[in-house]
């Protein structure tokens, strides 16, 4: 059986670095980098999609990543 891994992907060019995603992430897998944009830690992210739902700019998507 093939296990599909999903990750949150941030469009950093449009991120306003508000930090809403950081607040809702249950695994502390996302952080605001230097006040510039949100950065996902792919090792921790399980692709639950909470950040994508919360993001006020809707610039986070959940995508399948190669295993």
């Amino acid at each position, binding site marked *: 059986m093939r296990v599909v891994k999903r990750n949150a992907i941030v469009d950093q060019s449009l991120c*306003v*670095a508000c930090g809403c995603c950081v607040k809702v992430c249950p695994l502390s897998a996302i952080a605001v980098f230097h006040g510039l944009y949100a950065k996902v830690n792919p090792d921790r992210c399980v692709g639950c999609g909470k950040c994508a739902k919360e993001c006020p*700019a809707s610039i986070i998507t959940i995508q399948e990543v190669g295993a």
Partner: protein
Amino acid sequence: MKGKRWYDYLWIATALYLVLGFFNILFAWLGLLCFFIPLILAVATGQKSYCNRYCGRGQLLGLLGGRFGLSRRRDIPKWMKSRGFRYSFLVFFFAMFFLMLWNTYLVFAGAQNLSQVVTLLWTFRLPWHWAYHGTLFSPGVAQFAFGFYSVMLTSTLLGLVTMVLFKPRSWCVYCPMGTMTQLICQAKHREK
């Protein structure tokens, strides 16, 4: 879930600020904290820690739109999250802000009388005399308070409208303070 910290309750301060402006306009001066703290934090630490942790308005919008469900939770239109719009809104906001400062100066200088109104959306002049009970030093002190409260009430109103229409904290996308602190962070991290 993560435990709540003291700064997760700053929405109470924001709500209190808006209420106090109905009783004594001079409380509007406290709003300068929401102006200077984000800038100082951004310049000193190169982080948007104000937006990320301490912004009471963001929390209030998150609470009303999120927990109280007063938001449609739709995606914000593309143009509203573009840099062009965010920077234009920042410039417009500051132009209006300096106009307000100029009017304050005119009252300080005695060239204009104190106008006891709160101007909503830079257009609608609401009578607000009930919240004025005299002032110290100069009527200019009160003029600034009326002007600053107008800025705060207007931006809260815009925030509430986009909260209802789009995601709860959609104000954060075009918030002039957020845009400015992000620009400061960009400048700071370009140096290195």
